[in-house]
């Protein structure tokens, strides 16, 4: 029986459950003996010119080895934004700020101590003169260019995707109904449980070895080399266990480079672990878009036109966040057939923490905008939201479907996912219960939200085609090693990659060692992000395993003095046997005795894949307090064939929780002066167990032809589908009271205000 598709328990777990993982702060590598500890002095002001930086008091404090300010690192090149050809290249950053600070948390100096407790004390003693400038927090303030963050750039606009002048006036011709609305897709914190960290040491050969929690050692290496102005070959990045990442640990950050710089400067190993306070103000945030939608169609429910205008908050220094409108635009019309559609976007800088990738990265924003638009349209024409969706979904297709926004959907059956989700939810019964509760006029009302989505996973990187490499080696003792260019941080690649190779090689899962995240061992790799790993990294493992069997077949033929064509590989025994003579056999492991038996292989996919599904949420709202409680989440997430249901469900659960959290309660908040108000877990309302229900998952598996495993990415489905479903459910709970929209997060205050306003409008229209 095939192991593929079965619930294999994780081989990773016993270690995590007993001695715990070895995260960067846990490292006891002897190369790090005698390490000093680096502490960052961060700007307490959102926007200011830097005057004098006085390190003297800190230098005199107990245990302080050294202290450095931006001037000490001035020889290093200014960091250009990624994709500098596309983004405004004048918006550069220094590892430590030199002339200006541009957000609360911008590092301006470091203090280096023998002991971490001494660092906590000494970092307070650095005295920096700041000459404050106006903060730029609001989108409109940024667009007005009244205060400019980068004087050389002359504007706060990082990049434009299309422009307002390109909008077609005839877009809504023939529409009986046109609805427009502006709403936010708020800034949230990725908040992996492990904050950022680094450990760095330079060898006598002048090479840096650095341990960093990351999502891809190879891109972290390249980023570090650029920031430190050394060749990539001089940098070795090793990835310890990583305590969650969610997009925010891709590549390397300025802090990681500063730690390496300090280690070189002082000639001794250096370590850094950021506090949660630092993490919440200086690790990249996610989302941060404002959407203006227009949607038009017929009164019987055909959507004929859709327009999406995006403003993206890039934060203080443009990173991947500034590029995300590109993906939002690509996915603007989602799973629907809309005859006329257009989407444009503008990214701006603000005096806030830079925005990066966060689980879904650009696609949740597209789905949230579109699903909100469809609900507003449905409400306007008085049609059930599920019916409006079914009416406008693309019909099932097995040959790739080209969209107007340049996406090539590989395979899909969107209406089937919708129907399956509605059935699993008991949609008709839910609507009946809602009607009866509305009729009863109770103070706790119930709402249902439906969200259909299609998303893009495993897209190509900047260098082109989506691909990944793997090395599979069988050892004489019957064990095997897999090297992968992917980089798990909770996903379970050790188990999943072993399952794939085990299927081909007949070696038990527990006999595999899976390795990743060491750039000397695995110089090339795309890392883990954009839900790419299984469909490319897993496919590479399968391909290498199959090639290894063919390599071994030649050796087996020689060993058995038989023709290779007459040999059959029996995975049950992990051995080759001569057809018709099973006693004439040789084990795979034995073929590794005289010569190493391994294959390195690169898998290239024809393109990205497009998983899809439908989420249904059920929420209750107390109409007197505005308090919303999420009661149920039912999802169909079709990501092609499922390799290990246990792992796939885990990915869905985690994503649903983060998606629901954005709809319900999480938001990074700044005041008008750019002060972060959510800089600890006491203030940032990271979702806990009491705020969520158990989730109901229905399965649906439409294979893709883009890889032999038939799989698409599952990592980000949850944040894409759940957020609009939960938001819609809460709005739906009070829709009969006249509420059409509530901004995310749907806090009690916001829901209550919406109820008060709807009530006032209702009274106005009655009196008029």
């Amino acid at each position, binding site marked *: 029986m095939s192991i593929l598709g079965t619930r294999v*328990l*994780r081989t990773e777990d016993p270690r995590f*459950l007993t001695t715990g993982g070895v995260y960067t*702060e846990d490292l006891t590598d002897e190369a790090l003996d005698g390490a000093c500890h680096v502490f960052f002095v961060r700007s307490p002001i959102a926007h200011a010119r830097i005057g004098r930086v006085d390190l003297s008091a800190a230098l005199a404090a107990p245990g302080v080895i050294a202290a450095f300010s931006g001037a000490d690192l001035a020889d290093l090149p200014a960091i250009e934004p990624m994709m500098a050809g596309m983004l405004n290249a004048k918006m550069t950053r220094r590892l430590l700020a030199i002339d200006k600070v541009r957000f609360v948390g911008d590092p301006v100096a470091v203090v280096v101590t023998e002991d971490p407790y001494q660092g906590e004390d000494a970092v307070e003693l650095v005295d920096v003169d700041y000459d404050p400038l106006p903060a730029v927090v609001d989108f409109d303030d940024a667009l007005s260019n009244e205060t400019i963050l980068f004087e050389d750039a002359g504007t706060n606009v990082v990049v434009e995707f299309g422009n307002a002048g390109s909008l077609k006036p005839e877009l809504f011709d023939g529409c009986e109904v046109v609805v427009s609305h502006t709403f936010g897709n708020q800034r949230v914190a990725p908040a992996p449980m492990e904050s950022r960290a680094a450990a760095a040491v330079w060898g006598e050969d002048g090479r840096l070895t650095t341990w960093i929690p990351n999502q891809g050692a190879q891109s972290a290496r390249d980023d570090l080399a650029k920031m430190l102005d050394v060749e990539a070959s001089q940098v070795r990045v090793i990835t310890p266990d990583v305590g969650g990442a969610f997009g925010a640990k891709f590549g390397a950050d300025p802090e990681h480079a500063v730690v390496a710089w300090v280690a070189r400067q002082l000639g001794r190993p250096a370590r850094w672990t950021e506090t949660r306070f630092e993490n919440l103000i200086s690790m990249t945030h996610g989302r941060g878009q404002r959407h203006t939608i227009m949607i038009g169609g017929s009164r019987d429910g055909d959507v004929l036109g859709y327009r999406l205008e995006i403003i993206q908050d890039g934060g203080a220094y443009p990173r991947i966040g500034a590029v995300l409108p590109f993906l939002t635009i690509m996915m603007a019309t989602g799973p629907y057939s809309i005859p006329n559609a257009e989407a444009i976007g503008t990214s701006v800088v603000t005096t806030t923490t830079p925005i990066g990738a966060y689980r879904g990265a650009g696609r949740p924003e597209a789905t949230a905008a579109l699903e909100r638009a469809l609900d507003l349209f449905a409400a306007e024409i008085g049609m059930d939201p599920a019916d409006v969706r079914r009416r406008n979904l693309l019909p099932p297709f097995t040959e790739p479907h080209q969209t107007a926004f340049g996406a090539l959907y590989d395979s899909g059956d969107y209406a089937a996912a919708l129907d399956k989700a509605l059935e699993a939810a008991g949609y008709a019964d839910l609507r009946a219960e809602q009607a009866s509760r509305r009729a009863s006029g109770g103070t706790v009302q119930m709402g249902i939200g439906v969200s259909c989505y299609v998303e893009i996973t495993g897209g190509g990187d900047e260098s082109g085609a989506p691909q990944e490499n793997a090395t599979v080696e069988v050892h004489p003792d019957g064990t095997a090693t897999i090297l992968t260019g992917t980089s798990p941080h909770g996903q379970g690649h050790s188990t999943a990659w072993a399952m794939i190779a085990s299927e081909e090689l007949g070696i038990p899962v527990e006999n595999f060692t899976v390795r990743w995240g060491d750039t000397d061992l695995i110089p090339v790799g795309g890392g883990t992000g954009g839900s790419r790993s299984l469909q490319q990294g897993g496919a590479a493992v399968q391909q290498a395993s199959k090639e290894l069997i063919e390599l071994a077949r030649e050796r087996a033929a020689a060993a058995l003095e038989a023709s290779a064509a007459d040999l059959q590989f029996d995975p049950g025994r992990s051995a080759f046997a001569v057809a018709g003579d099973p006693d004439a056999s040789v084990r795979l492991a034995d073929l590794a005795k005289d010569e190493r038996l391994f294959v390195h292989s690169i898998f290239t996919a024809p393109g990205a894949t497009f998983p899809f599904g439908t989420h249904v949420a059920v929420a209750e709202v107390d109409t007197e307090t505005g308090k919303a409680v999420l009661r149920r989440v039912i999802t169909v997430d079709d990501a092609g064939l499922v390799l290990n249901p246990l*792992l796939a469900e885990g990915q869905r659960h985690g994503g649903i929780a983060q998606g629901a959290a954005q709809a319900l309660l999480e938001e990074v908040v700044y005041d008008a002066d750019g002060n972060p108000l959510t800089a*600890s877990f006491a203030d940032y309302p990271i979702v806990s167990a009491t705020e969520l229900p158990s989730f109901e998952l229905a399965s649906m598996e439409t294979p893709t032809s883009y890889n032999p495993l038939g799989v698409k990415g599952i990592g980000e489905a949850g944040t894409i589908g759940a957020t609009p479903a939960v938001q819609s459910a809460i709005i739906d709970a009070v829709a009969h009271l006249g509420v059409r929209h509530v901004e995310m997060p749907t806090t009690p205050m916001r829901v209550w205000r919406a109820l008060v306003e709807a009530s006032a409008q209702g009274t106005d229209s009655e009196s008029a």
Partner: protein
Amino acid sequence: MQVELTVNGEQRSDDVEPRLLLVHYLREVCGLRAANIGCDTTSCGACTVLLNGESVKSCTVLAAQATGQDVVTAEGLAAAGELHPVQAAFRAEHGLQCGFCTPGMVMAAVSLLRENPSPTEEQVREGLEGNLCRCTGYHNIIRAVLAASGQAEVTA
């Protein structure tokens, strides 16, 4: 100052700074690094250990306060090479992903089940409210605790 306590069954006596937190004592002095530090505000519970059988956040206890007491960490929950029933349930139900919150979550769950051997789902959720997990959406953690209490079918 001198602290004398039992850690995972072993009697210890160490000279520590008075302000040393228990979590730093366990990690740096005892070399027990399963308990992690995930926040600065006693919010996340990644550092949860058992103090005289009850769960505490070891970031909010001074090593000095643990003098004369009995500390158990994830490393000491079962004999080496074995899993405690709660640890086994976390594995069977896929109640962990990145593993960072896991040792603390397991200790909180052990304490919860000692106080209430047959909790409802709601009671498990309330009991674990002080332990944050960013990977699992809590779904399988709740399943694991219910399974460890003998109340939920083990799905694997």
